[in-house]
C-alpha cells in the first residue's frame, strides 16, 4: 500500500458535496447548469492524478484516519486495479450526464443537479472505501439521490418504479449489514484489507456469502432479482438511466469481486455452479425478453440484464480470462449502454415517445444520430473491433476454459444480442417513418455531439487497443486469484482436519464415493454430518 501525496480520493468525494452546498444557494436555473458543468469538469481534473496509478502495487492513494475509535471504524480509502477503472468511469460520466440533461430536465433544476453530484460522491465512495462500514455508508447513501432522480424527474409510472427500486435495493442490503457485523466479530476489525488476510470457517462463509450475495445480486441485477431494473430504467430520466447503467449496476459485480471472492472463497466456490447457472439464465433470459420489447428503453434495460450476466459469469469461472472479461464488460457496458441511454433520451426529447414504432426510419432525417446509434448498437452486441467484443470474448474464453458446457450455453446469448440489437437498429434506421413528424426533427446539435463524441472515441479506442486497460487490471486479478486459491486450500485443509473421523463413515455409507480431495459438495456433507 502506498500513501498519496495529497488526499486525491477524499477530494473526489468531498468536492461534489461542497458544490452541492454551493448550488443550494443559487436561484437561476441556467447558472446552476453551468456551475454543475464546470464542477463536473473540475472533478475530472481532480481525478487526473489517479492516472499515475502503478499496476504492480496493491492499494494506492491510500488515506487512513480514525473515525470511531471505540468500534475500530476508520476512514480508510484506496484504489487498486479492480476499482480504479470504476472510479474513472464514475467521474468521467458526470459531465456527460449534466450535458444530456441540459434541456431534458425542465423542473426543479437545482435539486436535480444536487442529486447528480450526491450520486457521484457516493458512488466514488463505494468504489474506494476500504473500511467495511464506510463502504456500507456510501452504498446506502447513494440510494436516496437515485430514488429522487427517478421519483421526481421520471416518467408517468415514476412513483411505482422508484419505490420498487428503493425497496428492492435497501431490503437486499439490510442483511449485508448483519454480515459486516458478523465479520467484525469473526475478524476483529472492519478494515477490508485486514479482513481479507483472515480465513473463516466454511459454515461462517456459507451464511456470509449468502447475505452479501443477496445484496450484490440485486444490484447487478441477476435473474431472478432483476425485476426492479426495467421499471427503474424506463421511468428514470436520461441522466438517471445513464447513472444506473454505467455506475450503479457495476457496484454489484464490484461487490462480488471485492468481498465475496477474497472473504468467502470456499463459499464462492461452493456456490459457483448456482451462480453460473443464474448468470447463464440472466444472459439468455435478458436476450429473449429484449427480443420481444416494443419500448426502446425497456429493450436496452433487458439487454443490460444480459450483459451483466456475462460479467457475473466471468467472476464465477475463477480464471484470469474470465475476471479480466468481467472488468472489461463492466467498463465497456458502462460506456456503451450509457451512450445508448443518452441517445434514447435525445430522441425522446424529439418524439416524446420511446416506442420503436414512433421512432422509425430516422436514417434519412437524422443521419448523425443514426451513425452514433449504429456504432453503439454494434458495440453493444460485441462487434469485433469495438470495445464490448474484447470483454465478452474474454468471458467466453474463460467460460470455455472452465467447462465447454458453460461455454456452449453462452454462445446463443451472444447471438441473441446481435438479434435484438439488429432488429431494433434496422427498424430505427430504415423502416418507413410512422408519421411525417419525424421530418421536422433536427439532427444532433453541438451540445449533443460534445457528449456523444468522447464515448464514441472510447468505444473504438478500447476496441482496437484494450492493452492499456489490461495492463492496469491484470496484476490485480492475478493477486485476487492467487489469494483466492491459497485461501481455499487453507480452509479445505482445516476443515478436512477437523472432520477427519467422518470421511470413513461417509465412505462406508457411500456418500463420499469420489475421494479426490474434499470437494465443496463433500465439505457440505461433512458440515451437516457434524
Amino acid at each position, binding site marked *: 500500500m502506498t500513501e498519496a501525496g495529497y488526499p486525491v480520493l477524499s477530494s473526489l468525494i468531498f468536492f461534489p458535496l461542497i458544490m452541492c452546498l454551493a448550488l443550494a444557494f443559487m436561484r437561476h436555473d441556467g447558472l446552476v447548469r453551468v456551475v454543475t458543468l464546470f464542477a463536473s469538469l473540475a472533478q475530472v481534473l481532480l481525478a487526473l492524478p489517479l492516472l499515475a496509478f502503478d499496476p504492480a502495487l496493491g492499494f494506492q492513494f491510500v488515506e487512513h484516519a480514525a473515525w*470511531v475509535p*471505540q468500534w475500530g471504524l476508520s476512514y480508510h480509502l484506496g484504489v487498486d486495479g479492480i476499482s480504479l477503472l470504476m472510479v474513472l468511469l464514475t467521474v468521467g460520466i458526470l459531465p456527460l450526464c449534466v450535458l444530456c440533461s441540459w434541456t431534458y430536465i425542465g423542473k426543479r433544476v437545482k435539486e436535480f443537479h444536487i442529486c447528480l453530484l450526491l450520486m457521484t460522491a457516493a458512488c466514488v465512495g463505494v468504489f474506494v472505501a476500504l473500511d467495511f*462500514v464506510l463502504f456500507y455508508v456510501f452504498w446506502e447513501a447513494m440510494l436516496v439521490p437515485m430514488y429522487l432522480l427517478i*421519483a421526481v424527474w421520471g416518467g408517468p409510472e415514476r412513483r411505482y418504479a422508484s419505490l420498487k427500486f428503493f425497496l428492492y435495493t435497501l431490503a437486499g442490503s439490510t442483511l449485508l*449489514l448483519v454480515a459486516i457485523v458478523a465479520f467484525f466479530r469473526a475478524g476483529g476489525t472492519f478494515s477490508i484489507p485486514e479482513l481479507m488476510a483472515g480465513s473463516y470457517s466454511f459454515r461462517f462463509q456459507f451464511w456470509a456469502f449468502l447475505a452479501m450475495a443477496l445484496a450484490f445480486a440485486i444490484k447487478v441485477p441477476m435473474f431472478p432479482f432483476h425485476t426492479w431494473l426495467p421499471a427503474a430504467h424506463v421511468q428514470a430520466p436520461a441522466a438517471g438511466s445513464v447513472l444506473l447503467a454505467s455506475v450503479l449496476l457495476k457496484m454489484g459485480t464490484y461487490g462480488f469481486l471485492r468481498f465475496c471472492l477474497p472473504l468467502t472463497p470456499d463459499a464462492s466456490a461452493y456456490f459457483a455452479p448456482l451462480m453460473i447457472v443464474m448468470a447463464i439464465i440472466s444472459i439468455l433470459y435478458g436476450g429473449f425478453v429484449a427480443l420481444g420489447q416494443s419500448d426502446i428503453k425497456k429493450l436496452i434495460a433487458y439487454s443490460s440484464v444480459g450483459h451483466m450476466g456475462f460479467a457475473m459469469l466471468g467472476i464465477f469461472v475463477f480464471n484470469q480470462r474470465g475476471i479480466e472479461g468481467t472488468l472489461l464488460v463492466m467498463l465497456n457496458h458502462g460506456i456503451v449502454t450509457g451512450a445508448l441511454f443518452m441517445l434514447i433520451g435525445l430522441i425522446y426529447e424529439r418524439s416524446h415517445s420511446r416506442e420503436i414504432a414512433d421512432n422509425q426510419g430516422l436514417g434519412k432525417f437524422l443521419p448523425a444520430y443514426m451513425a452514433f446509434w449504429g456504432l453503439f448498437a454494434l458495440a453493444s452486441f460485441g462487434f469485433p473491433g469495438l470495445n464490448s467484443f474484447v470483454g465478452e470474448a474474454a468471458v467466453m474464453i474463460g467460460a470455455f476454459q472452465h467447462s465447454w458446457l458453460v461455454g456452449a450455453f453462452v454462445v446463443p446469448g451472444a447471438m441473441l444480442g446481435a438479434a435484438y440489437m439488429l432488429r431494433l437498429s434496422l427498424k430505427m434506421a430504415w423502416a418507413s417513418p410512422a408519421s411525417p413528424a419525424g421530418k421536422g426533427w433536427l439532427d444532433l446539435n453541438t451540445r449533443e455531439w460534445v457528449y456523444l463524441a468522447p464515448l464514441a472515441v472510447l468505444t473504438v479506442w478500447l476496441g482496437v487497443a484494450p492493452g492499456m486497460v489490461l495492463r492496469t487490471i491484470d496484476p490485480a486479478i492475478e493477486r485476487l486469484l492467487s489469494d483466492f486459491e491459497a485461501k481455499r486450500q487453507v480452509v479445505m485443509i482445516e476443515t478436512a482436519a477437523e472432520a477427519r473421523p467422518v470421511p470413513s463413515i461417509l465412505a462406508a455409507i457411500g456418500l463420499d464415493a469420489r475421494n479426490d480431495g474434499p470437494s465443496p459438495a463433500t465439505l457440505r456433507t461433512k458440515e451437516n454430518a457434524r
Partner: protein
Amino acid sequence: VNLNLRPELLVPELIILLALLALFVQTLLPRARTATAAGSGGWVAYASVAAAIAAAASIGQSGTMFYGSYQVDGLSQFFKLVVAVGLAIATHNAAFGRTPELAAEKRPDYYMLLVMSAFGLMLLTSSVELMTIIIALEISSFSLYALVPLRAEKPEAAEAGIKYVMFGAVATALTLFGLAYILAEHHSTYLAVLAGRDFGFTSAPLAALGLVLFAIGFFYKLALFPFHFWAPDVYDGASNETAAFIATLPKLGAVVVLVRLAATMGPALEIATVLAVLGALSMTLGNLMALAQKDIKRLLGFSSVAHAGYIMIGLVAGTAEGLAAASFYALVYLVMNLTIFWVVCRASPSGRNLELDDLSGMYSRAPVLAFVLAVSAFALVGLPPTAGFTGKLFLFASTWGRGFDWLIIVAAVNTAISIFYYLNMVRYAYTREPDEGEQAMARPHLWANAFGLLLAVGILAIGMLPGSVFELAAMAGQQLLP
C-alpha cells in the same frame, strides 16, 4: 449509609425543580396575567438548556445519597443530559407553536406538568432502589396522565387520557406486585444488594417472576409489545406537542431503568430471553402495523413500538458495550423523533392531526422542512449517514456472537419492512403535487426552518461523527459493567 446530601451533584435536578416551582407560582397568579409573554412558557426551554449544561458539566462525578437510594454516576448524568436536551426541544416546540389547541390560561399548568414529568424522569435516572424507582416513575407518569387530555374540546383527547391512565395503573400494579416478589425472595430493594443475588428461573423462580413483573412497568412506558396498545391511541388523541413529549422522554426513563436492571442482574441474566422475544415481537408487529397507517401520529406510534424492540438488542447483550449501545440508541431515538415531530407540529399550525396526504407538496411550500423530514425519516429507517444508522450498527455490533444472533437478523429484516412507511412520508413530501385547498400549509417561519435544520444537522453529525457522543455512553456502560 446515611443521608449524605451533596447538593453540588444535584444541580441539574435543582434547576428543573426551580423551574417547576416558578411554574407552580405562575399557575396561582390571576389568569389574565398568565396570557402574557412570560405565560407562553418559552422560557422553560432556557431553563432546560441550563439544566443540560449542568448535567454535561457534572459528567464524570459520582456519589450516593439519601441512604443509598439515589446515585449519581456516568449513566445517570448521561441520561440527565439527554432528558434535559429533550425537554428543551419539546418545550421549545410547544412554545414556538403556541400550543394552538390549548386555552391561553391553561398554559402555565401545561408547562408545569411537562416539567414535572421531566423532573420525575431525572430522579428516575439516579434511583438505585426499587421503591425510589417506582416513586420517580409515578411522578413522571401522573403528570402525563393529566397532560394527555389537555386539548381543547376534543373528546378523543379525554378518551386517550383515560386509556393512558388505565393501562398505566395496571402496569404499575404489576410492577408493585413484582417488587413484592423480589422483596419476599431476597429481602432487599437495593439494587446494590440485589446485584449478586440469584434470579434464575429454576433456582429462584419467585425472584425471576418478580423481576419480569417489575420490568413490565417499564415495558409499558417504552411501549414494548404486548404493553404497546396505548401508544398509537394516545399519540393520536393527545395534541401534537404533547405527543412529541410522550413519544420521546418517558422512553428514556424506561431505558435507563432497564439498563440498570440488566447491569445489576449480571451478564448471565436469564430473563434476557424474555426481553429478546418481546423485542423481536415488538419490532415485527410495530412495523407491520405501521405499514397500514394513514395518520402520521399513529404511524409514529407504531414506529415507536418497533424502536422499543430495537433497544432490547443492546440490553440482552450482557456487556458494557451493549448497555452503551442501548443508551446511545435511546439518545438517537429521542433526537430523531423530536425532529420529525418538529416538522409535524410546524406542518399543522392549527394543531389538528395530520394525514399522509397533508404532507403533499411540502417540497415547494417548505423546502427546508421537507429536507428535515427526509433526514429524520431516513434516520428512523436506519439509513447512513444518519444517527439512526450508527445507533443500529452499534447495537448489532455489540450483540452479535452473544447468543442472540437471531434477534439481530430479525431486526435487519425489520429494517427492510419499515422502509416503506418511512419512505412514504418522504414520497408524499417530495413527489406529490401540493394541495391547493384551504388546509394547504403556509410558508413556515424563518426560525421554524432554522431550528429544524439545526436538528437535522444534529442527526447527520451524530451519524457521521458519533465518537464523542458515544464516548459518554461508553463511559456509563463501563461504570455499570466494568
